[in-house]
């Protein structure tokens, strides 16, 4: 059944889709997501179609007004949290049989590709962690400077009252200097922290885009193979 829909879709590529084909295509592009999510999406687009048809559009016009299933599915996938997206991945993986010599090659090559892959992942991870650590430590350094400055200011004031004279004044000046530096540094540090958060957000978006592109490629491959087998 599913295969027939896919074949039909291939044959009619570029042609006007009817409502059922439209819904089925969205569903197949979302394969792997929790069923509740898929159903919610389909309900939404069904309602959109009904409302447009009630507004006087024909079924074909209403379907066309909603955009292509690819667009719709990609936007839904982009809004899906990354872990959920990764979990939804295997369902669309091409079910191609791995040939015997490929297995042999993979196993024999393991001493080479395994350490390299692990090393690459480790390097990437450690770079990201180092960046986060640098920003965090700067934030703490500034905070510590501020706290120490305030504490030292009070301390030296007590010293001055107790009669420490010049030394007390010198300490007081130094502590005020520390507070001043901390306040000045607060602005660039805040900007740095915000930048880091934004960069992490962008990285997540990139990874998602990559995942979605791979999903779409894979499902196209399965389509083509099924066409050949038919």
């Amino acid at each position, binding site marked *: 059944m599913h295969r027939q829909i896919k074949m039909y879709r291939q044959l009619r590529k570029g042609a006007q889709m009817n409502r059922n084909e439209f819904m089925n295509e969205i569903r197949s592009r979302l394969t792997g997501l929790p069923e509740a999510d898929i159903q919610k999406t389909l309900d939404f687009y069904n*309602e959109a179609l009904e409302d447009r048809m009630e507004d006087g559009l024909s079924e074909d016009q209403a379907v066309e007004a909603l*955009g292509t299933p690819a667009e719709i599915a990609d*936007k839904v996938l982009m809004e899906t949290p990354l872990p959920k997206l990764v979990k939804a991945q295997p369902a669309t993986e091409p079910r191609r049989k791995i040939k015997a010599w490929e297995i042999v090659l993979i196993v024999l090559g393991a001493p080479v590709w395994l350490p390299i892959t692990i090393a690459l992942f480790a390097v990437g991870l450690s770079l990201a962690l180092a960046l986060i650590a640098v920003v965090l430590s700067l934030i703490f350094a500034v905070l510590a400077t501020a706290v120490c400055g305030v504490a030292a200011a009070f301390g030296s004031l007590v010293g001055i009252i107790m009669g420490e004279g010049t030394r007390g004044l010198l300490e007081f000046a130094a502590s005020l200097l520390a507070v001043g530096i901390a306040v000045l540094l607060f602005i660039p540090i805040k900007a740095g922290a915000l930048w880091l958060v934004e960069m992490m957000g962008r990285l997540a978006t990139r990874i998602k885009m990559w995942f979605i592109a791979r999903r779409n490629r894979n499902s196209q491959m399965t389509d083509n193979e099924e066409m050949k087998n038919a």
Partner: protein
Amino acid sequence: MDTQLKRGLLDICVLAAIKTEPSYGYKIIKDVKPYLTISESTLYPILRRLEDGGSLTVQSVEHNGRLRKYYEITPLGRNKLIDFAQEWKEVMSIYDYVTRDQNAPADQNVPAAAEGSTDEQE
């Protein structure tokens, strides 16, 4: 328009569309369209995000023998609109400053400082 900016504005426009009374998808699109390009494929993720964030709630209401989802704004969503208005008041004053016509007769509240400085140079 800058995509990041548009994304934020779309959320606000959707909240504004349900501000006075609960509304449904197609009507929201028709209401927002004069201001920003919006389609179902853009609206759907926004509605889900706003629902997950607690800015709106969803009720299914029967309409012509089928169910239609109505979106209703929550106090949290209203607060977002208030924050937006506050923030953009500042932006609008910057807009006025940036687009002020330089050839127009000088405003009363600006030139005092400028004249003062030229005097000093002379």
